[in-house]
């Protein structure tokens, strides 16, 4: 029979693997897409290759940061000694899952604006500086869901859960990790779509750069709302102290609330990204329709988000009623 310390160590190794294994997926896809579009851009305009290459590398560096967050969490899981308490098995797993899945969406998403900026420079070399700014802003906002996952992973690793009752707390912690981790996937990709449209828009019509960037920020911010619902559920699950229970139904309800919110946030994130993408795209073509486009985008995103709100309601019911 192995002792508790062995179980905790095994769990932290496994979670380090999960964190960087899943965390490596997204950024690689995003960076590859950026590189492919940079190749397209250089093919059509070889004399701009220096600028395009620079833009591609900067964009890829930002896209990579989601994976670097996952790397940091994996290193911490490997090199910090967790105390021998059974709850830490769950804590390590939750932190790993949270950061691993959380890095996926942002990595893919922030590849899109880098790609669009490379193609845009080839089409409109004079807009290079504005494109760079716009791309940096867009891909930095794309990182927000990954940063939320990082916050939850760190709170999990550095909070002392050893005085809480084991029975429902292990499920609450695991649910908290899954909730923010899965909820970050959709909004990361969706935010990337909006940023991509805005980079295309700035290249198409550099004079409209300011309103296009503003609408992009708005679209991305609303797209991230469901990731924030995931964060909220995680916070409730971490900081609420649940009374001890013998039955299995209570832990399962807490675990399910995390899964429910996490999965429920993926669809609205991508969907709201589509709404924002089209609105930003057409704003750059027709600046006079700015008011209508903004309103339509916001209403459309609010409707697309309603399924995320259903998940939030069910998750809250599972935490507070059952």
């Amino acid at each position, binding site marked *: 029979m192995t002792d508790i310390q062995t179980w905790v160590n095994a769990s932290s190794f496994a979670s380090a693997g999960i964190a960087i294994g899943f965390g490596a997926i997204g950024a690689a896809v995003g960076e590859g897409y950026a590189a492919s579009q940079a190749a397209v851009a250089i093919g059509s305009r070889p004399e701009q290759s220096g600028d395009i290459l620079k833009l591609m590398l900067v964009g890829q560096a930002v896209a990579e940061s989601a994976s670097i967050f996952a790397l940091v969490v994996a*290193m911490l899981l490997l090199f910090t000694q967790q105390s021998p308490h059974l709850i830490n098995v769950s804590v390590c797993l939750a932190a790993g899952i949270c950061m691993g899945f959380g890095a996926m969406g942002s990595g893919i998403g922030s590849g899109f604006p880098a790609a669009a900026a490379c193609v845009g420079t080839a089409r409109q070399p004079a807009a290079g500086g504005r494109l760079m700014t716009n791309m940096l802003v867009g891909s930095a906002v794309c990182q927000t869901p990954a940063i939320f996952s990082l916050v939850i992973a760190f709170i999990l690793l550095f909070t002392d859960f050893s005085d809480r009752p084991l029975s429902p707390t292990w499920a609450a912690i695991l649910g908290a990790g899954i909730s923010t981790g899965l909820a970050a996937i959709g909004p990361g990709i969706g935010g990337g779509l909006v940023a991509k449209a805005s980079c295309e828009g700035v290249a198409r019509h550099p004079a409209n750069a300011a309103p296009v960037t503003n609408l992009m920020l708005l679209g991305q911010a609303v797209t991230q709302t469901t990731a924030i619902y995931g964060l909220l559920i995680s916070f409730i699950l971490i900081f609420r102290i649940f009374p001890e229970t013998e039955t299995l139904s209570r832990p399962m309800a807490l675990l399910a609330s995390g899964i429910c919110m996490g999965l429920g946030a993926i669809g609205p994130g991508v969907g709201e990204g589509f709404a924002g993408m089209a609105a930003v795209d057409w704003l750059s073509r027709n600046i006079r329709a700015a008011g209508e486009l903004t309103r339509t985008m916001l209403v459309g995103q609010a409707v697309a988000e309603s399924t995320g709100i259903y998940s939030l309601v069910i998750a809250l019911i599972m935490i507070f009623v059952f």
Partner: protein
Amino acid sequence: MGELGKIHQLLIHLGGYTATLNLETMIMTWIVLTCLIVFGFMTARKRALKPGPLQVVGELLVANLYTLTEDAMGKELARKYSPMISALFLFLLLSNWIGLIPVCEEPTKDLNTTLSMGSMVFVVSHYAGIRAKGLKAYLKGYFDPIFFMAPLNIIGELAKVVSISFRLFGNIMGGSIIVLVITHLCYSLILPPLLNAFFGLFAGTIQAFVFTMLSIVYISVMVN
């Protein structure tokens, strides 16, 4: 690393209740407020037709924020709400930047600050909605597509407060955690200034701007 998650708190016991004050957050908030008041006083002190350097900075900030508000709300409302919007933006901007100074901590790293800002925007936007549409039309908005959607509409409204305040809090908190941890891992060599520039200056500016934009949009959505 041991400092992570530790909060200096002052507990005040008042007749059965305990008031908890986060000392660092309060001191930093007051520093930010003092800086802003001094800045405002300095910019407006020597007003002239040919502006001095400080006046130019002040005018640029106010004029740009006013245009931003006017684009979303229209002329009449912008005159009313742009002072609040400008103050909100400058406060959040300086709050996010103050973490660059070694001993200082961002007040926005504390959920209490962002949640109170979010609640303020919530109250102001609903007040503006009631003023513009009248109480009856305002209440009717909750039963919009069909009457049984009312609970979901109300949750949707409350979720706005959560989303606007957790977004700012999560980003600033995440940024400061990353700076702290990576600084620790690389023994404070080379990386910290770059990280501070990215997460403090760049991301801090963007997040302050996003918060301000969302506040403008929330108000204008309630009014129209």
